[in-house]
């Protein structure tokens, strides 16, 4: 003998399935295929090495500072 809870639960499981129209389902499928192509086509940007450029930049800054200091000493600034 089914009680009310069983009847309600069984009824919920047996409710008819729902779906969008065939044309709408086809349209959404197409949009998703396009988006999927776009989202997976973009390769992740290659990671650029950071240490090398940073060292070169620091060395250039020091060299520039030393040059300016030397120039200032020569011309008496």
């Amino acid at each position, binding site marked *: 003998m089914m009680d009310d809870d069983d009847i309600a639960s069984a009824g*919920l499981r047996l409710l008819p399935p729902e779906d969008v129209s065939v044309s709408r389902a086809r349209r959404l*499928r197409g949009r*998703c295929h396009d988006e999927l192509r776009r989202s*997976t086509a973009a390769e992740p940007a290659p990671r650029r090495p950071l240490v090398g450029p940073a060292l070169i930049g620091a060395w250039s800054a020091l060299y520039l500072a030393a040059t300016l200091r030397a120039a200032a000493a020569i011309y008496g600034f």
Partner: protein
Amino acid sequence: MHWMGVDDEAELVARLRSGDADAFDAIYDGYRPRIFGFLLRLSRRRTVAEDLLDETFLRLVRHAPALRPDTNLGAWLFTVARNLYWSYRRASALEDDVEPATLSLWPIAAPGPSPFDLVVGGELEARLERALQALPPQHREVLLLVIREGMRPSEAADVCGVTAEALRQRLARARAALIRHMDLERPIRRYGT
């Protein structure tokens, strides 16, 4: 809740991450009716459910490369669909205490059983749909996820963003409210018999 075996689903996820359209089609065909039914019964508006379904699957493909290999697709899709519904609700300040009799899954509500009720389901199903519509959405979503979709309470709790204990309490209240609204004391007669 895996709609297919965990290994099969893991393979589908791997293929989807690499942009395989056939893998998407398998997921789309398997989950579309279930997500749509969930959204339709949650929102009670066909056009809203259609729009939210579109956005759910578009989000899946946009996030495809970032999916974890062990993604539970069902839980992922229902979580996104549910969150989209609540965002929609907040944005539209939808009143949910509209008289249930004036609401229908279909754009135009009909008094009493609709032709859809008569053709498809008979009175038990019609009562069930009406009872579902009369419940607050927090109750509808737990009933749909746990009973209709067969999710474990812990999974449904993750989808709804609540603790497992809170979900169990909500489920018990929702079941009781559903039965009350179904009015099972009244005899059920079948149409067309």
